[in-house]
């Protein structure tokens, strides 16, 4: 038969072990992927199409601004400091089968930041030049920004439908 003193000592040891369990060192690991897409030369990226949305027959001009959500966006990537020549070719009309509505293209550029509110108007049709600026921190992957907008005018007799056209942007350095 164990003495009361022996039992008390046993309980005390059990409490100590339970208060801070003895254990082996624990570890875990995980991996993540670092990735980058390197581009060289001059690259144009289409960021967004031009979307006028729903326009009623017999209305116009229905103006879309560079700051509107439906404005088209392109980004130019290339060596900073280079001057590039840009040409925007836009149709005079958007088509839906044999039907058409008038489109007056407009464009603007921002050489410094992706900010359409501070963009400068540029011509549609004739070529113009812009310079790719040194990127500021956090903006090193977009060196020039081009916004497409304009207006559509819809005749009262225009049939309902989806009218589309293609705007082509080319750049040379």
């Amino acid at each position, binding site marked *: 038969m164990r003495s009361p003193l022996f039992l008390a000592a046993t309980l005390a040891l059990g409490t100590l072990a339970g208060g801070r369990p003895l254990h082996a060192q*624990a570890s875990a*690991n995980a991996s*993540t*992927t*670092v990735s*980058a*897409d*390197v*581009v060289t030369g001059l690259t144009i990226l*289409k960021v967004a199409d031009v979307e006028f949305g729903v326009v009623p027959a017999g209305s116009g001009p229905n103006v879309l601004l560079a700051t509107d959500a439906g404005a088209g966006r392109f980004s130019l990537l290339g060596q900073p400091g280079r001057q590039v020549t840009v040409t925007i070719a836009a149709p005079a009309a958007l088509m839906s089968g044999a039907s058409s509505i008038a489109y007056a293209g407009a464009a603007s550029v921002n050489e410094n930041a992706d900010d359409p509110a501070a963009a400068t108007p540029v011509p549609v049709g004739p070529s113009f030049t812009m310079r790719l600026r040194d990127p500021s921190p956090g903006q090193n992957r977009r060196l020039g920004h081009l916004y497409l907008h304009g207006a559509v005018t819809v005749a009262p007799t225009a049939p309902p439908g989806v009218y589309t056209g293609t705007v082509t942007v080319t750049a040379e350095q």
Partner: protein
Amino acid sequence: MTLRPPPSSDRPAGRAPAPARLAAHRARRARRALVGAAAGTLLAATSVAGQGQGNAQRVAVSRLADLTFGLVVGGIPASIRPEDPAAAQFEVTLRGQPPHAVTLTLMLPRELTSGADRLPIHFDATSAAWATRDAPDARTAFDPARGTTVTLDQRGPKSILVWIGGVLEPGPTQPSGDYAELITITAVEN
């Protein structure tokens, strides 16, 4: 877009090793690039499955986001800070009795690869940061090359978040391509 996978430590044993997952990542990205070109839309890289293993589940590490530089122009350094949304993110979860002291160490690449091409990457003294899960804005910067030790007190949180950025240095004649490599973080509870 970054897809968040389930916690790494919940993944079954016998998963593919890291190099195989990196190869699979590249194959998936190549397929996505073809789709993006056809649609005329640029797609951001999505994340890949994480890797994790724990000792009796007392410490677990989950990868929440990859370090994604996206498009980089040759000749222009590209930097991602830990507070940038494009930074890699891990969560370290500790179980059992507090207090906890956990040491974080990282295996960092010196360059990303695309076939035989190499793209230098470096990390500076503030390229990584950690914070507790319940106070993610109270970040402490650390050098990922040196690692750090985090001590969580008796009544504090048992989960910490870790962010990792970095700096790419593509040369002016850097070949274009899809570059990738792995970062591995190890958490050891002391």
